[in-house]
């Protein structure tokens, strides 16, 4: 027993030693770049450019311990200060470092959805950096409103690992909403800077064109324009909320017959060739239709890994070619060299998962269970997912019919697992 205890102490000490020596735990956490984006293009963003992009991002947004926003972002510095930095409480009981206290273990320091627990979750936590959010009231391509982010924090996302933070004081929730927007805007600027570097900079005739807004005022202007466009997108969200006309919305005091009529009309649309819901959600509504597509976050990683495999194949074929010149061989070696960094990035990625259409018979609604939440999903689709909208084709009344049908599915008396009912198959064929 004593031996065992000693060994535990030893192991713990060893772990501590490894932690302190190997990982440099004394360093403050730092924002990291999106290495998939940095190494995925034909013209890989070279390391010196990566450093310059990191510097510009720090210049505009600061660090995880000291976020600093310039006024153009419209972000509230005091709210960010509450959310950023290490978690602590002052004598009066006010809490700071809220992001690291509540969010970072899943969503990561950089908001990349790659915190320590992320790998073990399904679905993976949201990566804020592309500023694509699924559960919101606005049209597909638009940013969420502050209210939307607030609602996700208060309700959590049912059916996922995202819990409710309804017990936090409202000021703390507000601070976290601001911090999520901050991480998103930062990610958007990173993408814009990466594209700019790929499109406009590079080495020409031995001369390297740096990303250097300090000495190139034109670049400074371009960066401000990028930022303005990003902020404009967030500011415009409130104008892009899907708001159906009040007179089309179903009344609260409908008779059972009226509800049944609407559900029946919705059922016909669900399995019909206009709305096509069944192609993905299945003739059963169990989500067992088309399952081969991906969410944008997974798709980016899949394309990255596919491209590595393709390049490996091309290089192999290259070596098998006849009459290779010295130039050919140098070229192939350079390409092999370039693959090393990409393989290293690929080794850090999580397994790619398919987007599985929602099983509509479970009665679990990730984006909210209010009829208006379901209405908006059917109207505009779900951003970042394969789910399309049908709002441009159907009338609002028809959309409400589908809402009624979808919300009735968990209560439909039927054996489990649900079979494709003959009457539904008749609509499909």
């Amino acid at each position, binding site marked *: 027993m004593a031996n065992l205890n000693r060994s535990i102490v030893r192991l713990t000490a060893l772990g501590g030693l490894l932690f302190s020596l190997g990982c440099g735990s004394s360093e403050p956490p730092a924002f990291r770049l999106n290495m998939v984006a940095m190494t995925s293009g034909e013209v890989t963003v070279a390391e010196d450019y990566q450093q310059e992009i990191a510097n510009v991002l*720090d210049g505009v947004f600061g660090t995880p311990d000291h976020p600093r926003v310039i006024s153009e972002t419209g972000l509230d510095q005091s709210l960010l200060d509450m959310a950023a930095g290490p978690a602590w409480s002052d004598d009066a009981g006010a809490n700071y470092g809220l992001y690291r206290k509540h969010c970072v273990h899943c969503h990561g320091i950089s908001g990349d959805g790659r915190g320590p627990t992320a790998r073990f979750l399904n679905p993976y936590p949201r990566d804020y950096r592309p500023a694509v959010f699924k559960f919101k009231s606005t049209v597909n391509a638009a940013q969420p409103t502050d209210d939307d982010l607030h609602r996700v924090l208060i309700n959590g996302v049912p059916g996922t690992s995202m819990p409710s933070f309804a017990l936090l004081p409202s000021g703390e929730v507000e601070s976290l909403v601001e911090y999520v927007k901050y991480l998103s805007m930062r990610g958007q600027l990173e993408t814009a800077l990466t594209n700019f570097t790929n499109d406009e900079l590079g080495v020409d005739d031995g001369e390297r064109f740096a990303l250097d807004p300090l000495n190139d005022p034109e670049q400074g202007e371009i960066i401000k324009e990028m930022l303005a466009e990003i902020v404009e997108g967030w500011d415009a969200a409130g104008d892009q909320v899907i708001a159906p006309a009040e007179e089309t919305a179903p009344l609260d005091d409908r008779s059972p017959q009226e509800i049944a009529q609407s559900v029946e009309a919705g059922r016909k649309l669900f399995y019909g060739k206009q709305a096509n819901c069944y192609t993905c959600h299945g003739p059963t509504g169990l989500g067992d239709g088309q399952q081969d597509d991906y969410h944008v976050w997974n798709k980016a990683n899949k394309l990255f890994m596919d491209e590595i495999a393709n390049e490996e194949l091309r290089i192999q074929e290259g070596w098998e070619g006849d009459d290779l010149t010295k130039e050919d061989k140098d070229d192939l070696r350079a390409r092999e060299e370039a693959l090393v960094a990409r393989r290293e990035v690929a080794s850090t990625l999580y397994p790619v998962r398919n987007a599985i259409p929602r099983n509509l018979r479970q009665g679990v609604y990730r984006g909210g269970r209010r009829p208006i939440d379901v209405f908006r999903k059917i109207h505009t689709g779900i951003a970042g997912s394969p789910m399309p909208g049908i709002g441009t084709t159907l009338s609002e009344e028809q959309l409400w019919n589908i809402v009624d049908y979808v919300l009735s599915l968990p209560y439909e008396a039927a054996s489990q697992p649900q079979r494709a009912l003959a009457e539904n198959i008749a609509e499909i064929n």
Partner: protein
Amino acid sequence: MLRSKPKHAFGAVHAAACAALLLTAGCQQSVSLGPVADEVAATKIREALLSGDGGGEVQAAESGGTGWATLKGRFVYEGTPPVMPAYDVKGGDMQVCSPGGVTPKQETLVVDPETGGIANIAVYVRKAPRVHESAQALTDSVLFDQKECVFLSHVFAINVGQTMAIKNSDPVGHNTNIEGKNAFNQTVPAGGTVEWPITKEEALPKAVRCSIHPWMLSYLLPRKDRYFAVTNEKGEFEIAYLPAGEDVELQVWHESAPGNSGAVVLKSPEAKELSWSSKGRFTVRLDPDSTKNLDLAVPSSAFGG
């Protein structure tokens, strides 16, 4: 005592696992996470951005040329043209997507067997120094059709300000999912048409997909002027009313060029004359009222072969 033993054993395993986890998860990450910002450099950049006058006025590039000219050309594949396999069609819509058991061929690299011409190469001016009135953006509606579960325009160039009339000529439902700044994802009912106004320019074509039929793929190139072309089945393109007497830089893109950017890189002597870059760009300086004709041989290596 006995009862507590397994607990301790678990504790030891736990500690070992923790140490292992720290070793693998905690430390391994530093390998490929890229650089961390340099605080001193970042602070200077911040001050420059805040002050707004980081070293003088931005000078507008002066236009040096006059007159207009036409650029024509042809991309010809060197070697044996690849044979396109059929699309990987599966699912419940086989009768429509594979009519009579015949599935449409893929279009990842379409080479004309007679002329060797390469179709679906996009050629467009990156930043026009001047735009002729005949090359100003249009504002009408342009048909974007799909039939037998194939987008009929494989590379679809359009103006910002124009509207895509997304049509579904199939008796089954499709959805059209556009990536990028003009993001869109709506179901297009059997036989129906959905309109989508294009509002943002893109530097490179963006993928257009159908989630119901995931093999369906097309590319959208939204541009602010008419200085674009997509090669026809003979590999030909023509761009008229280009600014003459000054440098004009063109981007050349094909979906099967290696890497994710689609940059077509040529290294032939003729390409060198056009200062063809590793980003798939070349530069011309045209004489007024002239027509320049480019005959460009494309080796299979330009597609990674």
